[in-house]
């Protein structure tokens, strides 16, 4: 197991009258090499959870084992830098972290902070920019001159260039147009498939979660209320009602079909899959 929360709790404003337990005894093992979604209503603790993965927040109780690091409550942590290098965190609206004069300077910023040599940092950065499909002609342009989608991809390249083993994305497609969103989703799916990176995505977008995430963690009031296969979650009517989940359209379609006597397998994920199964039954 590469990521393992052990009875972890986090309390905001500890020792204050308005203390608030944002994470409450979290026990969670996230599979290495998986794409895992973290969903839950606003205020359920998703961001708090994710910020622990990068030691931006430290546990108040319990511990977190991640890669070779072990973060224990109330102990001084000495390995923050290597941990932050190995776990890349892409924030929501990450384009707001761009600050250097040129795209390439901004992308090498992270690697240099983590102690890469100048040459290594540049090589890694060029590689990362290619992965996010930013054309070479933009390398020496100010990030401010790029479009919204391009800025977002440059920011992501800034994280990828540090060569993280685990990539955590907080609402990576928020505010982008459909074409821009698709490009980013395709990117992390390919990072997972070709480079075997563990991907953790915090998202409200259940369509995307259903389509691309192997596993889903549902948080509610700081507790893990579900952790398991995404397909199982969305095919369980009881769970859907209990967690007030918005149904992806594809699931609505599947449900409508099964209610009308069609047999659709749980594994059917895409329109093509479903239509294929329907056709077989219609043309029998």
């Amino acid at each position, binding site marked *: 197991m590469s990521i393992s929360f052990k009875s972890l709790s986090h309390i905001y*404003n500890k020792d204050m009258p308005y203390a608030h337990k944002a994470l409450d005894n979290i026990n969670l093992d996230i599979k290495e090499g998986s794409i895992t979604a973290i969903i839950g209503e606003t205020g359920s603790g998703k961001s708090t959870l994710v910020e622990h993965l990068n030691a*931006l927040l430290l546990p108040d109780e319990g511990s977190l084992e991640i890669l070779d690091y072990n973060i224990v409550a109330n102990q001084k942590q000495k390995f923050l830098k290597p941990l*932050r290098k190995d776990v890349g*965190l892409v924030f929501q609206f990450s384009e*707001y*972290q761009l600050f250097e004069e040129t795209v390439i300077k901004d992308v090498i910023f992270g690697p240099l902070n983590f102690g890469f040599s100048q040459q290594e940092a540049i090589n890694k950065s060029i590689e990362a920019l290619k992965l996010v499909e930013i054309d070479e002609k933009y390398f020496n342009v100010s990030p401010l001159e790029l479009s919204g989608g391009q800025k977002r991809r440059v920011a992501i390249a800034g994280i990828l260039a540090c060569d993280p083993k685990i990539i955590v994305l907080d609402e990576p497609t928020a505010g982008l147009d459909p074409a821009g969103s698709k490009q980013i989703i395709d990117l992390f799916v390919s990072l997972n498939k070709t480079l075997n990176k563990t991907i953790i995505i915090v998202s409200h977008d259940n369509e995307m979660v259903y389509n691309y995430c192997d596993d889903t963690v549902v948080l509610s009031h700081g507790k893990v209320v579900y952790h398991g296969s995404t397909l199982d979650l969305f095919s369980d009517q009881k769970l859907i009602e209990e967690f007030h989940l918005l149904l992806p359209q594809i699931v609505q379609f599947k449900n409508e079909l099964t209610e009308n006597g069609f047999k659709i397998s749980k594994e059917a994920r895409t329109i093509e899959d479903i239509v294929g199964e329907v056709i077989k039954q219609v043309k029998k």
Partner: protein
Amino acid sequence: MKGLVFGKYIPIDSIIHKLDPRGKLIGLILMIIAVFIPKSWWAFLVIGLLVLLALILAKVGIKMIVQSFKPMIFMMLFLLVINSLTVKTGDVLFTIASVQVYSDAVFNTLFVIVRLMLMISITTLLTATTKPLDLTLGIEWLLKPLELFKFPTHEVAMMVSIALRFIPTIIEETMRIMDAQKSRGVDFENGSISSKIVSILSLIVPLFSVAFERAYELADAMEARGYVPGAKRTRYHILKFKYYDYIFIFICLATMVFSILTRIYL
């Protein structure tokens, strides 16, 4: 920054919350004069009791006021040390490390500390019980006479209220950008001066670019809703003095007069 108490509004309902902001501002000025004039402990006792009464009435909790003193502790200690070294009148109270501490040193320091504590309590009380917007309305009213000299009180008040409205948003944004840069390996606490400069740039540049974007969009939104700088506008909030506002101002005024009298006669 999350523990910051000074200047924070506490949204509850109390008689002190209900007071007119203009009255409270006048009260603040009168009470600050009352705190600074006297040299008698009697005056402090009376002011202290009044402040305590106001605190209880405001229901904001004594704990909050005590917390607002925290940032001052260092300053108070510093003051005590300096006074102990320099003030050499009165009786010798005790000796530490061959430094003789005189009674006047201790009393002078206590005097200043009590003054500061009272002042902080009074201002915290004002900000804790008055919505920032109401405060702006009050300040605008106090500045009204300056309009005679073409001072744009209305525009200034609008600017201040928008600034107040965006402070929480900008604090949140600062935290988020700091976190984002930390996960790119920035260390905001340690490091050489040159790396510190880069760290600060990585925070300031994005903050400015976001702030400008906000400002442009906000200007568009205001314009689209019919705002023209300098044009006549009506006001939704119209402040009205009630009987208890007069009582409040009278109490503050009486306190000030009392403390002036103690200075003269005691």
